[in-house]
C-alpha cells in the first residue's frame, strides 16, 4: 500500500456515502451484474480523482459529480432490461426488505417511472429526490438554475403523468 492514510480516509468517506453510490447504480442499471460493474467503476474513478480533491466543493457534491459522470458517460451495452412488474424483479437488495403491499407497489411505480426517463432526467430526478437545492444541482450538473427549473417542472409533470398512468391505468392500451 503506497498511501495507507489516504486509502483509509478514502475508504471511510466512501463507506459513509455508499448509499448515494448504490442509488446511482440502481437508477442507471437494470440488472445486478450491471450495477456491480458500475459500482466498481465509480469506486475506481473516485479513487483516481481523490488525490486532486481539494475540498473546494462539498465531498458529497464531488462524489455526485463523479458518480453521475461515470454513470452517464458509461455507454456500455447493458444486460437485458428488467421491467418492474413483479416483486421478484425489484433490485435484489430490496427484495429482502419487508415492505407493506402498498409501499411495495409504490416503490415499483417509482422505479418504473424512473426507468422511462432519459439519463439526464434521471440525474435531475435523483437530485430532486435527494432534496438538493438548485444551487447544488447547478454545481453538480453545470446547468443554469433557470434551465434547471424549467427541466424540473417538465420532469415533475412527466413523473406525475407516468405514476398516474400506472396507478389508474390511464393511457394504457
Amino acid at each position, binding site marked *: 500500500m503506497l498511501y495507507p492514510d489516504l486509502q483509509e480516509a*478514502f*475508504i471511510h468517506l466512501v463507506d459513509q456515502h455508499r*448509499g448515494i453510490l448504490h442509488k446511482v447504480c440502481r437508477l442507471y442499471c437494470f440488472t445486478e451484474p450491471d450495477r456491480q460493474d458500475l459500482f*466498481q467503476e465509480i469506486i475506481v474513478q473516485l*479513487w483516481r480523482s481523490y488525490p486532486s480533491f481539494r475540498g473546494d466543493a462539498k465531498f458529497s457534491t464531488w462524489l455526485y459529480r463523479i458518480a453521475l459522470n461515470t454513470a*452517464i458517460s458509461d455507454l456500455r451495452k447493458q444486460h437485458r432490461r428488467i421491467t418492474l412488474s413483479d416483486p421478484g424483479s425489484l433490485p435484489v437488495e430490496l427484495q429482502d426488505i419487508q415492505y407493506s403491499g402498498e409501499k411495495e407497489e409504490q416503490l415499483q411505480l417509482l422505479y418504473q417511472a424512473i426507468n422511462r426517463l432519459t439519463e439526464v432526467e434521471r440525474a435531475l430526478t435523483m437530485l430532486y429526490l435527494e432534496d438538493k437545492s438548485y444551487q447544488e444541482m447547478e454545481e453538480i450538473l453545470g446547468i443554469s438554475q433557470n434551465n434547471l427549473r424549467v427541466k424540473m417542472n417538465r420532469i415533475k409533470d412527466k413523473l406525475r403523468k407516468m405514476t398516474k398512468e400506472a396507478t389508474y391505468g390511464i393511457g394504457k392500451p
Partner: protein
Amino acid sequence: MELENLKSIWKELEAQPTPETDGEQILALLQKKSRGPVARMRRNLIRELLLITVTYIPVILFYLVEFEGRLSAISGLLFLLGLFFCGYYYRKMMLLKKMQCVSCMVRSNLARHVETLKKYTRFYLLAGTLIIPFTAIYVYAILRWKMPHASGLQLYHRLSPAPWWTNSIYWLLLLAPLTIAIYYINAWYINRLYGRHIKKLQELLREMDEE
C-alpha cells in the same frame, strides 16, 4: 401518487441497509482496472503500440543487416513509419488523457468528452489516410532508385518512347483513387467504432442545453 410521496419512498430507501461493502471489499475494488470506455481505448492503444514495436524492430534490423545492406532503404522507410507512429500514438494518448474530467461538472465533462473524441476521430482518419500515399511514394522511390533492374527491363525502357517521369505520373494517378478509397473505408470504420458513442454523447449534451 404525489411527488412528495415519491420523495418519502426515496428517503425510506435511504434508511434501508445497502448491500454490505466493507473496507476490505472497497480496498479490493481499488486494485481493479477501470473498465470505462476511455480506459479501454487507452489500453487498446498501448497494445497496438506494443505490437508495432515488437514487429517493426526485428524487420528494421533485418533489412539493415541482410543483403549486404543494399536494402537498407527499406529499413529507412520502416524507421520513418516508426517515427510517424510514435507521433501518432503520442497525439492519441494525449487526446485520451484530456478526454475525461470526471470530477468536473457533468455538462462540462460531456462537452469535453465530445470535443476531444471528435478531434481523436479526425486525427485517426487523417493519419490513417495519409499513411497510404506516404508509404506508396516511398516504396516507389525505393523500387526506382535502389532495386536492380529486372532482366528485359532496360530493353523495355530503351524501346519505350515515353520519358522517365511518365511512370511517376501513372503512379500518382493510381494513388489518388486508392487514397480516396482508403479515406472512405477509414471513415466507415471509425464511424463504426465511435459513431454511436459520439452521437449519444451529443444527444445528452443537447438535452442538457435545451430549455
